[in-house]
């Protein structure tokens, strides 16, 4: 089968790889029909996530058709079209029982801090991902959810990560009616977080980024205000000023480790890898939120240390909430929202690329070429 193959920082290609096999009684093999490249894949692509081994296949956002099931799989059958959450979760451990499906303890041997994630380095379990024709899906009865009749595959694939992560970012903000929410980052997750903030009753939603085309996209899609930090002296001062010098009720970091905007952070976090990515957006979130406010973090950071203004967190009495999205917990609600037209996620997809051209797709997405917001890869065997 064809699969994306990581060869080193900024080097990927398409190769023939052996077909995945059932290795555990609760496994399924899924034929991929859509898979996305995610902003967090760029941390892997740039070689910033420890234990990203050459030869791995990335891809944690995919939907497909069940081709084969292990002997203990009961809820799925061959031929089902499924949404596969990006997190791999057993459904039995202490954390799964609390619906913390992003924090499962039976899916990743290699680290205790992060759960199992498809195609996301050995630090996240060493699984091959969905940027391929076929993929092995462990615990097939827990995560995978049958795509409802009539749902567009492009909408479905966005339910594997982008929509739940954006939604949970807003949910973790504890937004109360009328709150001012500031979202740092106008990538797909930031745009979705801004959109979902309205569902929790926000009174004002502001998005901050540096790419004009992404800001324009956010304004249209998320019906929010959007500003370019390149035109600000200081984002924290800007937020204070526009909130009558109080600060935002809720700040969302939807950027994570690849943040631009601060030279020191870029050098220590992105170039020298001395901290877990550049924490610029997180600084801005902490310093822009109102005293007693909530900072919600969904941006992905590496596992090493970070230089974070923790003193300001204490002095301002900020609540910080952060997690990988608990996709399975949120799916029923979000499927309803998509079916009812409250959220239209496929509108974020700007590029449809054959899987064979994966190297170009990564370059376009990572360099923000051709006004790219979200690329989806389509394997030759998709047939739909």
């Amino acid at each position: 089968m064809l699969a994306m193959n990581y060869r080193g920082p900024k080097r990927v290609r398409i190769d023939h790889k052996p077909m995945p096999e059932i290795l555990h009684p609760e496994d399924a093999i899924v034929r991929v029909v859509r898979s996305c490249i995610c902003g967090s894949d760029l941390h892997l692509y740039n070689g910033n996530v420890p234990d990203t081994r050459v030869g791995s296949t990335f891809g944690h956002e995919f939907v497909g058709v069940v081709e084969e099931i292990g002997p203990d799989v009961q809820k799925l059958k061959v031929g089902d079209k499924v949404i596969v959450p990006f997190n791999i979760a057993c459904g039995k451990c202490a954390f799964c029982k609390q619906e913390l499906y992003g924090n499962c303890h039976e899916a990743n041997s290699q680290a205790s801090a992060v759960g199992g994630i498809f195609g996301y380095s050995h630090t996240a379990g060493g699984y091959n991902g969905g940027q391929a024709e076929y993929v092995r899906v462990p615990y097939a009865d827990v995560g995978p959810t049958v795509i409802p009749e009539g749902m567009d595959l492009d909408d479905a694939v966005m339910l594997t990560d982008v929509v739940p992560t954006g939604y949970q970012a807003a949910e973790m903000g504890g937004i109360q009616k009328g709150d001012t929410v500031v979202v740092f980052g106008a990538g797909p997750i930031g745009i979705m977080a801004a959109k979902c903030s309205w569902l929790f009753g926000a009174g004002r939603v502001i998005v901050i980024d540096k790419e004009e085309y992404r800001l324009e996209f956010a304004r249209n899609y998320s019906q929010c205000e959007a500003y370019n930090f390149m035109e600000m002296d200081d984002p924290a001062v800007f937020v204070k000023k526009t909130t009558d010098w109080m600060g935002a009720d809720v700040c969302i970091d939807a950027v994570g480790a690849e943040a631009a905007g601060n030279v020191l952070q870029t050098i220590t976090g992105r170039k020298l890898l001395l901290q877990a990515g550049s924490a610029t957006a997180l600084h801005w979130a902490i310093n822009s939120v109102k005293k007693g406010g909530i900072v919600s973090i969904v941006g992905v950071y590496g596992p090493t240390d970070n230089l974070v203004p923790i003193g300001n967190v204490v002095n301002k009495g900020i609540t910080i909430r952060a997690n990988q999205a608990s996709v399975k917990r949120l799916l029923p609600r979000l499927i309803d929202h998509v079916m009812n037209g409250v959220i239209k996620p496929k509108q974020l997809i700007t590029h449809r690329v054959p899987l064979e051209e994966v190297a170009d797709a990564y370059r376009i997405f990572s360099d923000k070429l051709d006004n790219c917001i979200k690329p989806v890869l389509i394997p030759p065997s998709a047939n739909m």
Partner: protein
Amino acid sequence: MEDTTKDYSHINGWGIDADPKNDPTYPMKRRTNEEHSGYSWERPPQQPINMEVLHSIERPNISAVFGTAMPPSGLSGMIRRFAFKHSENSYLHWLPLLLADRVNVVEGIIEDFKEGKAPNIFAEKGYPAEWKYEKGSLVTKMAVGAAVVGVAVLMFAGEKKRKKWFYNLMER
């Protein structure tokens, strides 16, 4: 304060998920007393361990399922084994892993040649796409690359050649 809050009820779905009791500890607080007894859940069956799987020293065992993408091998594998002797709380875990990743890249290139194929690095880096959408940046990148290679060549060249090159440059 200027009232910036407007009527947003025209936005599809506005406020439908509003919950005044949205508690910051949700869903973490949805736990039962069972959890106080520690690592005690009924574990899923173990995936057969027929390959080398490294596991964090912060857990007692290998998780019930695990990924089989790339078992540790070669020099990078040795470095990774060393890293996994240290906890996730230690730089001695993460920095060797990053080093192993870089070593692994070289191993990958050697592997490619062994299998009789030269990696097409130009294509792997997606430069055809960059050429299509942003010629200028690619040209700059190539020029910088050429300069770096040039300097490297000079460093390895003998004293005489270096002097000659320097004089040539100054003459122009």
